């Protein structure tokens, strides 16, 4: 038992030493642009929201944990009827927020960033194991992250809207541009 414990201790120490984000940092979403892109035979449209709020931390727990939420009704496509119909099919009044929890290994540095996302939307929750984002700029106190989340409406049991009997494609890409400000470090 003593040998076993000692072995565990050694490996444990190594793990702790290599654990990313030993210094805890917290981040706040300074500005963002989240857009969905819908593809129909006769239309291509996108809805944009700049109303997301988010916070995150690295080093407080294992790796980094970020959370962003955005009210569904803040997405604007330039057409009020389309927006309201989108709210209807996504059950936006019953489930007003798109809630995204992101986890990744270490504090974001410039370059590719692979994150695990848990997205709660339209009353359903879905985990995307490895989504490739990119840190396009990194200053001492801020990072800009961009990327695309390949959502499917069927993932969230959202009925595909149709026009003239033709439904939109199931794939609805969600693009993100987010500027995160480092709010504290210790």
């Amino acid at each position, binding site marked *: 038992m003593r040998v*076993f414990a000692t072995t565990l201790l050694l490996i444990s120490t190594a793990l702790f030493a290599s654990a990313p984000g030993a210094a805890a940092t917290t981040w706040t979403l300074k500005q963002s642009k989240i857009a969905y892109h819908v593809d129909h035979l006769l*239309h291509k449209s996108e809805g944009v929201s700049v109303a997301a709020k988010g916070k995150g931390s690295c080093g407080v727990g294992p790796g980094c944990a970020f959370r962003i939420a955005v009210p569904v009704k803040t997405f604007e496509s330039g057409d009020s009827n389309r927006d309201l119909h989108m709210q*209807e099919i996504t059950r936006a009044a019953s489930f007003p927020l798109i809630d995204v929890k992101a986890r990744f290994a270490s504090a974001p540095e410039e370059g590719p960033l692979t994150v695990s996302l848990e997205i709660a939307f339209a009353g359903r929750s879905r985990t995307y194991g490895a989504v490739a984002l990119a840190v396009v700029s990194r200053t001492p106190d801020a990072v800009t992250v961009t990327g695309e989340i390949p959502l499917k409406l069927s993932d969230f049991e959202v009925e595909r809207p149709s026009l003239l009997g033709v439904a939109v494609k199931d794939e609805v890409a969600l693009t993100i541009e987010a500027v995160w400000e480092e709010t504290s470090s210790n």
Partner: protein
Amino acid sequence: MITYRSACLVTAFAIAWIAQGGVAEGTTGPLAGLRLLRGGERPSTVAGYFSASGSPGPLLVALRLPRVSAASPRPRGWMELSPAGDHGIAIAQVAPPEPGKEPEAQAPDATEPSLEELGFEEVEARGDEKQQQRLNKRSRMLKTHQILGLVTLAPMLGALALGEKAGEGSRADRNLHTIVGTTAAALYGATAYFAYRAPSVAGVKEKGLTRTHKILSYVHLPAMIAAPVLGYLAKQQADKGERAHGIAKYHSAAATTAAVTFTGAMLVIVFDF
């Protein structure tokens, strides 16, 4: 007993650490940097807090483990980890510690901020079923509006095509034009009904092509009301062998205006210009 054998092996480091005197009795802290290593899978992180309830002794942690499968529930809550056998750890779900003694509030999601911390008020995150029903009803009615609009277009354009012949032709031609035109007017009325009775949503300003669609209705609605009235007068005059005169002579213009703007209203919804 050991559902996450290899995972617990890693978690066991902390126990060993305590057993070796690495953590003083009563210490609590985050389970930072611990990773679950399940066979053949990439590591998953474990969120939680540990509490050394005795040294040496079992480690009391609040943690959330990955699901074994998509269908199974994610094990979470307070668990007691104890050495078991020669190589493993026993995980036993236990009641949460006494309030105030352990950092329960920060336990499994300590690193994930709450919606309140993000800046959302409770009312913003709460669902409104009545509003959802209103949206659903609105959508249903507008879908019916859309279908009826498409159906209306056929007799409307048909009446327009038959109109030229009706003015100069026989009574039968005029009767046919009247039937088709009346059908168009009736369907138009039903189409309009579903648009105007669809519930509106407070605080939403009409914009984009929907606004254009509505502005066009300010043209085709009066034109569509005028066209049958003027058509009735024109038919009476024609049945007497007279050419359309007075306001009746504007029947054709009113009907054409209605058909053109109605078609335009439909096209702006179908196509992006």
